[in-house]
């Protein structure tokens, strides 16, 4: 039997929220298991207050920061916590979807929810994901039934008849909206061009007003994505950058196919070197979106100011 449990938890109000999270955490603590709460700030404070002194034994992370980019949550929040606690059965409240998510963020977050199942199959852990039935749209609530094998509501717990996570991944693998202003672009077909791409990135980042530390992160992201195009994407690609929502968005497009939906979500097994480019891109960017097909892949990223 798969020791990994992934529950979609529907709540309607603060009392319902606490009823579905606090006893879950308290029973984990009383069983001596590690507990993590990764939810948006206000809900985080609500849980912390309700737990009282027991909160000291729980790890907290503001999901609007740690999981601002949904692609960051599996590797850098969940996997990191599980790796820290081998031989245990961690209990995690993870809330990656909230009403203020933009449509592109939501699409990435729904894919993230779907991929959790494959990422941690066989690992002893229970993750419960709260969904606000009062504020989230119908699509988010329906898709939660597709991404979670088990559903929880008002104290009832049942197997989701709609569970089909890879359908949800595929449903959000859609052409990405075109940028609506001027775009800076550069084609590349060899590794020597990477330095030029970094130069273009720095120039566009300064125009967009990104702080210095984010410029360096952007250069790393651009280099990693373009390197992937050279190695896996048919050997050529195009970098595009444009100002977006007060920050900078960009994408690297090539003629490869990103076959593994978990690429960039888990560190390579055995600590083997290589294959960490997308993992780091997920860590550094504020949003990563992917559209991939048989002979074209477009990876889009956003850096907020």
């Amino acid at each position: 039997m798969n020791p990994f449990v992934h529950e979609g938890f529907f709540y309607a109000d603060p009392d319902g929220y606490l009823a579905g999270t606090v006893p879950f955490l308290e029973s984990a603590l009383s069983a001596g298991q590690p507990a993590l709460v990764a939810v948006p700030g206000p809900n985080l404070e609500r849980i912390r207050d309700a737990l009282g002194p027991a909160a000291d034994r729980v790890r907290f992370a503001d999901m609007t920061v740690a999981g601002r980019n949904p692609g960051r949550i599996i590797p850098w929040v969940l996997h990191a916590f599980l790796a820290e606690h081998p031989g245990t059965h961690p209990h995690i409240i993870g809330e990656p979807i909230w009403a203020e998510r933009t449509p592109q963020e939501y699409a990435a977050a729904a894919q993230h929810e779907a991929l959790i199942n494959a990422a941690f199959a066989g690992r002893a852990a229970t993750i419960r994901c709260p969904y606000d039935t009062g504020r989230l749209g119908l699509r988010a609530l329906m898709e939660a039934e597709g991404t979670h094998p088990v559903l929880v509501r008002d104290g009832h717990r049942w197997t989701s008849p709609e569970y089909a996570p890879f359908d949800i991944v595929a449903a959000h693998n859609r052409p990405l909206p075109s940028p609506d202003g001027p775009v800076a672009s550069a084609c590349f077909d060899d590794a020597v061009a990477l330095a030029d791409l970094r130069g273009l990135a720095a120039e566009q980042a300064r125009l967009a007003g990104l702080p210095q530390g984010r410029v360096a992160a952007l250069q790393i992201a651009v280099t990693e994505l373009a390197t992937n195009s050279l190695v896996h994407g048919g050997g050529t690609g195009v970098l595009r950058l444009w100002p977006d929502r007060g920050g900078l968005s960009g994408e690297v497009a090539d003629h490869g196919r990103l076959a593994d939906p978990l690429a960039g979500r888990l560190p390579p097994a055995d600590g083997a070197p290589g294959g960490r480019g997308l993992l780091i891109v997920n860590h550094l960017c504020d949003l990563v979106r992917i559209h991939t097909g048989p002979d074209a892949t477009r990876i889009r990223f956003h850096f907020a100011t």
Partner: protein
Amino acid sequence: MAPTAAVDRLRLGDHVCWDFDDDDARLETIARFVEGGIRAHHRVLYLTETDLPARLRTALRDRGVPVDELLAVGQLDPAARIAALADYVAAARRDGYTGVRVVADMSGAAGAADAIERMAWFEANLNPVFTGGRVMAICLYDRRVFTAAELSRLGPAHPATARPQDDPATWAPLLRAVRLPEGSGLRLVGAADAANRYAVAALLGWLVGDAVRAGRAALLDLAGLQFADVAAAEAMVAAGRAVPAGLRLTGCRPEIGQLITLVGGAGMLDRTA
């Protein structure tokens, strides 16, 4: 536009993959590189399958270089191959030269089934010799002879590559590596990415071997490293794990330090830097 004029900016220690697709630009690049070497009192080694080609002799004479005298005294030294570059460099120093310049015409080396892998291995493992700062080389790769796929294997065996389309006014070597005077140490200046992947791997391999043989810690001075990609950061962390006495990274920029931390090398960072 070929970056011919950029050869004037090369220094002892540089090892550059020089791609060309035009014979005039190639000749001009070699002549300029050789002439600069003669003026700096370097010994100039021209590695070629043929004798010093007639056109190059003419081009050098046109520049006022006394080719025959230099050949007679051995400052200009055409050869098919040499036994070991490090020994050649040491001998030139004993003979009173201030450095060695190498022009390596790689076209004759193409052909055999495993030629590319052998060349890439050979080129990468020459890099430690350059870190002593007494020899510089341009390795000439003809794009009409080598495929783009072959050059994508051969180029990264060098710390830097110059391509025909590069601008001579702005071209500079992507990376320079300098051996530190004491202990087992290396200073990296510039950038480390897929364009010099195998060169960086060979340099780190040399550093690890030197530290392990001497039974001491290794030191990587990164104060001049402006960019490292994820694989370069991983290579540094892997090198650190291979040295029992450890590897210390100094002068790291914050973003490179963050990258090294993210790939598991937090313990190697010198916090005082």
